[in-house]
């Protein structure tokens, strides 16, 4: 199988996935967002056509049906609505039918900034979270808005954790 991991390369995730004999494509999506949009206002820049074009030229530019699974983690929270729509469309395109996508969304709407993490799979039961600071999310999502976001996909399942985190498993 071929797995897409957007948390950035870590030894533990690489070992976990490749020990099962799967192939892993690793990218640090938040790093890529910062490289394109952090010069000035992060979210205003995401409406700048030139910067968006530059970002999309290097983001998720894979052939249709390239992956059997995607670990998106919490990255989608930092995309403004129009860009988010394009990225989700691309994820839909590059995932094979029947494959799954894992995403996290913070559910605590009262706080201004949320912690961002580097997610590392330790074993089949544990994920290690390495904090990378805090940032303001583009928007907060409830179950209804998530269903709408992934409406092109086959199914969406939600799991609300104790840490105000909504774990979402989406089937293509």
């Amino acid at each position: 199988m071929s797995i897409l991991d957007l948390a950035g390369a870590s030894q533990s995730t690489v070992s976990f996935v490749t020990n099962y004999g799967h192939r892993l494509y690793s990218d640090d999506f938040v790093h890529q967002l910062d490289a394109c949009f952090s010069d000035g206002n992060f979210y205003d820049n995401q409406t700048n056509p030139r910067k968006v074009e530059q970002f999309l030229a290097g983001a998720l530019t894979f052939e249709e049906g390239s992956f059997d699974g995607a670990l998106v983690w919490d990255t989608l929270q930092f995309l403004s609505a129009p860009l988010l729509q394009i990225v989700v469309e691309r994820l839909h395109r590059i995932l094979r039918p029947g494959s799954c996508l894992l995403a996290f969304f913070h559910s605590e709407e009262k706080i201004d900034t949320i912690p961002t993490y580097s997610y590392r799979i330790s074993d089949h039961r544990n994920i290690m979270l390495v904090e990378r600071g805090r940032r303001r999310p583009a928007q907060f999502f409830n179950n209804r808005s998530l269903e709408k976001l992934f409406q092109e996909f086959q199914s969406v399942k939600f799991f609300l954790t104790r840490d105000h985190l909504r774990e979402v498993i989406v089937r293509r």
Partner: protein
Amino acid sequence: MWNRRKDEEFALKPASAPPTSSALAKEGIPMSTLPGRTNEPHFDNPRGSAVLGKSVIVKGQIFSREDLTIDGEVEGTVELQEHRLTVGPNGKVIAGIKAREVVVLGTIHGNVETTDKIDIRKDAKLLGDIRTARVVIEDGAYFKGNIDIVRAEVAKPQPAPKPQPVASATAPAAGTHNIAAAAGGGDLKR
């Protein structure tokens, strides 16, 4: 009985003390006038490997039959089939790479294929697909690309050769059987 003082003097004298410049000048040994490189960033540079220094720029193909360290810029292809490539902290390689082992401390843009190991150190940057038997990624390294781990094939035990039809009556049938059994049995024990 023993001249202790002389012994102590002998012991205190450093065995590999570098000769002074005046001493070397007296002996007529040529000396380098280049300034010492004590402030350079240090990284593993095993003795005997070829080095492309940080002010060297190469465009084209590199084939090496020894370990190579690149601390400059290379654009093209790099092949060291049985050897180790080290991309130093100042190194920038825009190339497809084939080697036994690759250690990255600088930047690589290109696909990397090794038969043994790829070691991506802290602050290193690798953009490209990697195909290797083992990979080590330190915290703080940036990697973007496909990771394809190629497991070394375990030698499968050879099945015992089928007994060949005896061509002539003089062929030692029992001997043939023993050889086949020994070969098969030995492999199975492993």
